[in-house]
């Protein structure tokens, strides 16, 4: 039972990171109708920054967080300019955006490996220290709790943003019909830039909470990107709550697989999860079907 609970909490923590990545996919998708393949690499870049800040330069945690946000948001904006804008400005033909964002992820990864090398990044002390809290008789690391809390807060904040603010509503409008949005004076380009800022922010937070949890090397970007995508697919495209649930489900599934099947084949958990969900509910757990097609 203790083992089970420990695995469960670890799963929720890692799942929170997947959920955060899925949320940043959704933010971008909700205003540009594309999936940013480089999202995982953006997070990896954030993890590297946090390593440099904390482990090498011994900066305080809060300052580190600010530096991560600055770096990740900047890269995200650069990506929007060079790899995304050429495609969202015109009606989407083919998968040009896919190739472009993939190319961008390749560039991030290469630059990171030049800066850092191929060695695994050493796990970094968590923002709340390395302490534990006892929940249901199990010691849960504070870094796990932080990850979970950050994801929930981000999700709630995004819900408020989309529901209650001008920009949030405009973003949903632009995603649905760019032309009508333009007729109402909404600048679609500005909106998609903003989406990349927000997605960058969410990704930076993901990097900040994941850095103490996993040891990673510079190639994990793609892996995390794909897992975030699986969380998204399992939860259902476009739904913020779906991202959260999908992410947690994936994280827990992996830990359970680890515990009861084999730690070697943990990666298969994601594949199995997505196949099961797709078989039962093709539009994802929280996904809705389109109302009317042409």
């Amino acid at each position, binding site marked *: 039972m203790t083992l089970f609970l420990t695995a469960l909490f670890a799963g929720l923590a890692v799942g929170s990171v997947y959920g955060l990545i899925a949320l940043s996919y959704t933010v971008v998708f909700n205003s540009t109708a594309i999936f940013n393949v480089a999202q995982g690499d953006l997070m990896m870049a954030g993890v590297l920054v946090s390593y440099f800040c904390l482990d090498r330069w011994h900066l305080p945690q809060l300052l580190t967080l600010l530096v991560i946000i600055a770096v990740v948001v900047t890269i995200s904006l650069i990506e929007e300019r060079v790899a995304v804008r050429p495609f969202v400005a015109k009606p989407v033909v083919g998968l040009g955006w896919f190739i472009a964002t993939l190319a961008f992820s390749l560039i991030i990864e290469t630059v990171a490996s030049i800066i850092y090398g191929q060695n695994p990044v050493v796990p970094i002390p968590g923002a709340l220290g390395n302490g534990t809290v006892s929940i249901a008789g199990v010691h849960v690391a504070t870094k796990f709790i932080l990850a979970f809390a950050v994801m929930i807060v981000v999700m709630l904040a995004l819900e408020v943003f989309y529901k209650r603010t001008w920009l949030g509503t405009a973003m949903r409008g632009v995603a649905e019909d760019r032309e009508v949005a333009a007729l109402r004076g*909404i*600048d679609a380009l500005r909106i998609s830039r903003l989406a990349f800022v927000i997605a960058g922010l969410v990704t930076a937070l993901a990097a900040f909470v994941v850095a103490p949890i996993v040891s990673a090397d510079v190639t994990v970007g793609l892996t995390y990107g794909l897992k975030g995508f699986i969380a998204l697919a399992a939860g259902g495209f476009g739904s913020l709550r779906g991202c959260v649930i999908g992410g947690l489900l994936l994280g827990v599934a992996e830990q359970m697989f680890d515990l009861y099947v084999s730690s070697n084949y943990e990666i298969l958990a994601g594949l199995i999860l997505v196949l099961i969900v797709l078989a039962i509910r093709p539009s994802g757990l929280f996904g809705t079907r389109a109302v009317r097609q042409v």
Partner: protein
Amino acid sequence: MSTGEPLLEVSDLHAGYGSLEAVAGISLHVGAAETVALVGRNGAGKTTSLLAIAGLRYGRFPGGVKLGGTDISRASSRQIVDAGLAHVPEGHRIFTGLTVEENLRLGAYTRRRSGRKAVAGTMERIFDLFPILRTYASRNAGFLSGGEQQMVAIGQALMAEPRVLMLDEPTSGLAPIVVRTIYDAIAQLREQGIAILIVEQSVPRALANSNRCYVMERGRIVISGDSAILAQDEHVFAIVRGTEEVPSPARTS
């Protein structure tokens, strides 16, 4: 004919998709508190004309659009909205994933800094114009009927407090009773001093509800004049029905 200075003045406007010129140099004007109709067959270039006037340029053709004397032919769509021109495209295109209230609110996007009160005031007036929208304010707009969606679309455009309102086939596919409601609303708007340019498929409907009328065919305006006079003119019906070739040269009655 028109009352005072024309609010919207379009001169020699060209527009098209790719290298196909759908609009081959049209000129028209709409004055304050005036309703002007634009009729013509499918593919005559009416829709493209309105979109081009609204700043969604198709192609890279020249053409002058003036709003209240200011040239807006090079303005961004945002500047055009700010200048006081709003367009309701055809097919009651609204944001179906948003509620009615959110749809309306987005119409006031360019006025978002003018204060909560001002925006709420405009929304009140739209609810007065289309009372049914008040009942459905928090409903998802995608679940409304076609007529109600059209009301949302018009209301959304009005949220920007425009001086000129353009409507593309606002009543196509709607029940006669809804058509009446919408034209009544349009009449009210005109009385408030808004200049209205309307594309209408049904010629009698267009002529009955407008002061002046332009007939388009193959990207050009071929007939224009007072609606009351044009209503007596068989050619107008024949051209729109497609049973008569365009008389040449273009004439004005």
